[in-house]
C-alpha cells in the first residue's frame, strides 16, 4: 500500500497551502477525521490553480499532492477524464492492474492502485478528488451567475 511515490508526496507535498481561488470547499471523512479545505482557480476552461490545506493520513495528504501535480494547467475536460479514471481505479477493490494507457493518464496516481484493496482507506484517497470536483462545479456555477 505505502508505495515510495505515496510516501514522497506525503513528505514533500506539491502545492500545499491556500491561495486565491474562484471557489472553496471543506470536506471531511467522518470515519477518521481527515479534513481538507480546497480552492480552485479557473481561467476559462483551464485550471490555473488547485490549492489546499488539510490534516489527515499519508494516503489523503499524498493524494491531494498528486492531484495538484496532475490537474494544475490542464483543461477541464481532460482533468475530468483523469478524475474519472482515478475514481474507477479506487473503486476497483484491487481488481484493476493499471496498464500503460492508464498510467499515461494517471501518472503518479497509479501508485494508489494498492490502496483500492483496503475499503477503509479508499475514502482517504478520494477525499481531495471529491473536494476538487465539488469546488470546480461551484466555481463554474458561480462564474455563470456572476
Amino acid at each position, binding site marked *: *500500500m*505505502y508505495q515510495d511515490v505515496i*510516501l514522497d508526496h*506525503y513528505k514533500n507535498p506539491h502545492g500545499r497551502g491556500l491561495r486565491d481561488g474562484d471557489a472553496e470547499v471543506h470536506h471531511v471523512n467522518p*470515519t*477518521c*477525521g*481527515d*479534513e481538507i479545505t480546497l480552492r480552485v482557480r479557473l481561467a476559462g476552461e483551464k485550471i490555473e490553480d488547485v490549492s489546499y490545506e488539510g*490534516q*489527515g*493520513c*499519508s*494516503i489523503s495528504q499524498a493524494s491531494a499532492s498528486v492531484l495538484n501535480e496532475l490537474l494544475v494547467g490542464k483543461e477541464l475536460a481532460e482533468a475530468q477524464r483523469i478524475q474519472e479514471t482515478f475514481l474507477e481505479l479506487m473503486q476497483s477493490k484491487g481488481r484493476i492492474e493499471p496498464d500503460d494507457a492508464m498510467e499515461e493518464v494517471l501518472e503518479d496516481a497509479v501508485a494508489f492502485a494498492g490502496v483500492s484493496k*483496503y475499503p477503509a*482507506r479508499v475514502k*482517504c484517497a478520494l477525499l481531495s478528488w471529491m473536494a476538487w470536483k465539488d469546488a470546480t462545479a461551484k466555481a463554474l456555477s458561480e462564474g455563470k451567475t456572476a
Partner: protein
Amino acid sequence: MTILLPGLLDTDAIRKDFPILDRTVHGGKKLVYLDNAATSQKPRQVLDVLNEHYEQHNANVHRGVHVLAEEATALYEGARDKIAAFINAPSRDEVIFTKNASESLNLVANMLGWADEPYRVDHDTEIVITEMEHHSNIVPWQLLSQRTGAKLKWFGLTDDGRLDLSNIDEIITEKTKVVSFVLVSNILGTLNPVEAIVRRAQQVGALVVVDASQAAPHMPLDVQALQADFVAFTGHKMCGPDGIGVLWGRQELLEDLPPFLGGGEMIETVSMHSSTYAPAPHKFEAGTPPIAQAVGLGAAVDYLTSIGMERIARHEHAITEYAIQRLQEIPDLRIIGPVTAEDRGAAISFTLGDIHPHDVGQVLDEQGIAVRVGHHCARPVCLRYGIPATTRASFYLYSTPAEVDALVEGLEHVRNFFG
C-alpha cells in the same frame, strides 16, 4: 523473555479458551489483539453455549407450552438471574435486556422524555453529561434536550484527562433532572469519581445514569455500591455475543416510568382502545428479545466469575502499568489520558508525533497488531485536546506483557517507516 508482573493471571491457560487468539494474519504473523475496548473475543465456553442453544433449546420465550419453549424461557430468565447476581442487583426484575449500551441509554432518555412529574424533563430543567462521553451518552441527551427544551450542560476535562469537578455546584443545580456519565472512558481510560457526582446529584434530587460499558467487563460492578439509578452496559465487550445489552434500573423507577417501545411481551391486556402493561422488566422488552444472545451473556458472566472480577482487574492494572511505562519510552509518543495506572482502565490512547493514527494502525496491522484508530466515538475529547484522532491499544484478561512489547516494537517500526 517472559516478563512477570505482580497480579498477572495465568494467560497461557486463559488463552486456550479463546480459539481466535491462535489465528495468524498477513501471511503467518501472530495476531496481537489490542482492540478490546471495541469488542472482546469470545471464549469457547460462550461459543459452546450459543451452539447448544440453537441445536437443542431454540424456541420463542414466554409463550407456548411445549418443551422447547419452556427450556428457552428458563435459559433466558436464568441469564437474567446470572446478570443480576453479577452486578449485585437487589432484584432480578431490575435487569432489562436491550440490544446494546446505546439502546440502554436511549431507553432511559426516552423513559424520561415521556414521564410525568416528578421525573418529567422539560424546558425548565437541565440535563448534565461530561465532555468525555461516548457519542452514545451524548446524542440521546441532545435529542431529549432538543425535543423538550431542557438545557444540556456538561463537565469539562482537565489537561491530564480527568473530569473537572471544580464547578460541580454550578453544573449540577436544583434544575438538574438527570446526570449521566461514563464510569470508565473508552478513549481516555479514566475511571471517574462516582461518589462525588452521586452525592451532589442526590442533594438536588437528580437521577443518576452510569454508562458502565468499559467497566462491567473489567472490574467488579456493584450497582448498589454505585448508588446510581440506572446503569447501562453491553455484552459483546465482556466475552458475550453482540446484540445483547443491559439496562439496570431501580425498581420503583421502573414501576413509575412509562414504557418506550410498545409491542408483544410488554403488555398485560390489550383492547382496541388502550392497553395495560406488564411489570418491569418485561414492560421495557417489547417483541422477541435477543434470546440466544442473552443466554450467551449469561455464559460469559459465568466465565468471568469463574476467573474472578477482582483478579481480572488486578491483571489489567499490571498490564496497564507496564504498557504506560513502555509506551513512554517511545520518542514523540503522547498519551491522551492519565499517565498513571491509578483510577484508570486498560484502554490507552496516544498520538505518535505527526504520524496520523490511520497510518499507525495500518502499519501495525501489517505486523499482525490490531488496534483502534480514529476518534473512538468520542470526538469532543479529540477537540478538547486539539488532536484529529488517536491510536488506542486496549487490553483484557488474556493480554500479556509480551503483547505490550510487540506493540512497542511495532510502534518503533512505524516511526522508522514514516520518519
